[in-house]
């Protein structure tokens, strides 16, 4: 089980110079609290730099980043591209589609192409769980997982946690997040759970039984019987996107039933603590998993998440490219 662990050193390559310390970011499972907080600190700095128009800078000058999107994702791709441009990296983006089998073949073939292009950091989105660690084993580049199947989406998890940190005035202890929706198919939920576990934040899940994966409690969460139970007294709620395919595959009776029983509504949100916030990874199905009044309401931090996403990706790219993090730079 030679698993390239979270933020493990990528293999140094001959003549790699400043990139000798390149690192992968494959997931948040097993991430150390300190490491996570360092990334959040870096990201807070990048957020401030962006807000005060001090970007782009040249921190990743000379670094080539490849964005390999084997699955369509406009917002994640744009967020990474923006982060790369703000740090002065060279970037190339390629997207492919096709059937799952042809994707597998494409993935193998693409390895050689990437190797030949001397890409330093490879940002990868793929429909297969495990695709990021698969690439990390085979490609001579630092791999950043931008979402692999149902497995993990670590930069999304980090931006969620950054958003919570701001909403919670920097204090994680004693906090509780309720995650509502399709946990079974959600890489967003898995990354958030692992990251929040590292910070000591409790996570409660509420979902139809058909959308909860087996033995999910062993991830370090509790399962509430109803969405009301999950939200009561929570410090934040995250509504997950419901895909229409879930009806077709018989996992849900109808979108209407889902909205009635599991939707994050104003009445349900009122069960949370007064200062509690609402997150959604987007894109939203308004009126299904989240009511428009909640999405646009005072508790919504959904657009903070998007802004924080670019800052988090700056922090991650810099680390994965082998440049020192903020704390290391200070000391």
């Amino acid at each position, binding site marked *: *089980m*030679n*698993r*390239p662990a979270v933020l493990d050193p990528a293999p140094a390559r001959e003549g790699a110079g400043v990139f000798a310390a390149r690192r992968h970011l494959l997931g948040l*499972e097993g991430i150390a609290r300190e490491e996570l907080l360092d990334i959040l600190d870096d990201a807070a700095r990048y957020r401030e730099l962006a807000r005060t128009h001090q970007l782009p800078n040249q921190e990743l000058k000379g670094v080539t980043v490849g964005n390999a999107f084997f699955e369509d994702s406009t917002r994640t791709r744009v967020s990474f591209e923006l982060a790369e441009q703000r740090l002065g990296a060279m970037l190339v983006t390629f997207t492919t589609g096709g059937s*799952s*089998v042809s*994707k*597998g073949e494409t*993935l*193998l073939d693409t390895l050689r192409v990437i190797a030949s292009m001397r890409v330093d950091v490879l940002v990868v989105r*793929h429909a*297969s*769980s*495990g*695709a990021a*660690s*698969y690439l990390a084993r085979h490609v001579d580049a630092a791999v950043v997982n931008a979402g*692999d*199947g*149902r*497995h*993990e989406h670590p930069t999304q998890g980090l931006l969620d946690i950054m958003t919570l940190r701001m909403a919670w005035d920097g204090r994680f202890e004693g906090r509780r997040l309720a995650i509502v929706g399709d946990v079974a198919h959600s*890489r967003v939920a*898995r990354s958030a759970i692992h990251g929040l576990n590292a910070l000591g934040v409790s996570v409660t899940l509420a979902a139809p039984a058909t959308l909860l*994966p*087996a*033995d*999910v409690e*062993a*991830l370090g969460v509790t399962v509430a019987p109803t969405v009301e139970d999950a939200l009561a007294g929570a410090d934040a709620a995250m509504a997950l996107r419901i895909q229409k395919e879930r009806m077709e*595959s018989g996992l849900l009776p109808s979108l209407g039933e889902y909205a009635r029983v599991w939707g994050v509504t104003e009445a349900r949100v009122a069960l949370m603590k007064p200062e509690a916030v609402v997150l959604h990874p987007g894109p939203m199905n308004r009126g299904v998993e989240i009511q428009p009044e909640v999405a646009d309401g005072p508790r919504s931090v959904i657009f903070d998440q998007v802004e924080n996403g670019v800052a988090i990706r700056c922090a991650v790219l810099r680390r994965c490219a082998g440049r020192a993090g903020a704390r290391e730079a200070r000391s």
Partner: protein
Amino acid sequence: MSGAVEKSPPVLIRNARHWRTGERIDLALYGGRIVERAPAHARVVEAGGAVLSPGLVDVHVHLREPGHTAKETIASGTRAAAAGGFTAVCAMPNTEPVVDSAAWVEWVAARAREAGHCRVYPIAALTQGQRGEQLAPLVALRRAGAVAFSDDGRPVMSAAVMRRALEYQRHADAPIICHEEDLTLRGDGHMNEGFTATRLGLAGIPAAAESVMVWRDLELVELTGGRVHFAHLSCAASFEALRRARERGLPVTAETCPHYWTLTDEAVGDYDTHAKMNPPLRSEADRAAVLAAIREGLVDCFATDHAPHTHEEKQRPFDQAPFGIVGLETAFALTVSHLVRPGHLSLARALELWTEAPRRVFGLPEVRLEPGFPADLALLDPEREWTVDPARFHSQGRNTPFAGWRLTGLPLATFCAGRLTHADPGFAGAREVAEAQLAENPR
């Protein structure tokens, strides 16, 4: 087993240990059979106290030929069998084309006679094209040499088709081997449903996908009086069903495979496609149930479900890689290391489940260490430690989860119809016979 079976030259195996009694034994082979005494010019195999047993039989092997010769051929697969101490294998029909006609049964048998290193008993498809719709010509297939019928890998989802198959089977007089899996419950699953699948974000296959079909077919056996052999049972619930079937006296038998008593779904680790097979590796409780079923005698025989794939196929991302692992060359060692040494079974009982038991279940010719029986033999060292190195496999398939494992138990030499089909490079005792055979038939 190139042609000259009946003319196999005389060989005297000296100083072996009888697999069942543990007594010192010398055995003479001549003309493909065990004989009373060896002629004076017999070549000698010095066994040095190694265990001599009937050749192992693997009733569940995918030789991939015709059609998928990039994965395995009859030649390479039977060579791997010989290296594993096997003298006979039953070949599954999910080839291309599917073995669902007498002509292809005869072709497999003929190809095996020509290129094989052990006896090959073809298993024919149960339904045409393994599509689960229309019965294959079972009587003609049986007459052509099929020893059983199976849509292995593509379970018959229609209970009505299975019912008719079990009724019609009596005219063909051979068991139906059931790969028990409800495809709707499997869905797009790629590994056992449980925490590891949840952690990895992989769709799970519940154990019930297997056990509901075991229950269904038990009911159909009750209804029809048909005869079923359950392939590769992997979970506690299936053995519970089997236990009830025994109480009801139903004519069913079952096999399990070394990986189910050795590994759990945790072996998938970080998306290791070498731990991807069907049925999938299950939970620790299921593994314990497999061991209990073996101890209790619920398991009628062992099999490997040897399923070679190419390196390229197993290099795909987990959800796109094919199911299956190779097993012929690690079967004996996994039996000794994980059943015999931990005290679950005696060596004699474990060997019985690889030799006499499968022969009985499938009505294959009996082999005893007595004059007159076929000289299909394995010389085994149950004490020898070795490290699994897939690069040294004789199989074309290198897809094993046991690479690098330190195991105990090594087949030293294998005889099929009196001829040496394998000798371990480190075993000097058979050198004389090996050299003589090479001089006579250099291929």
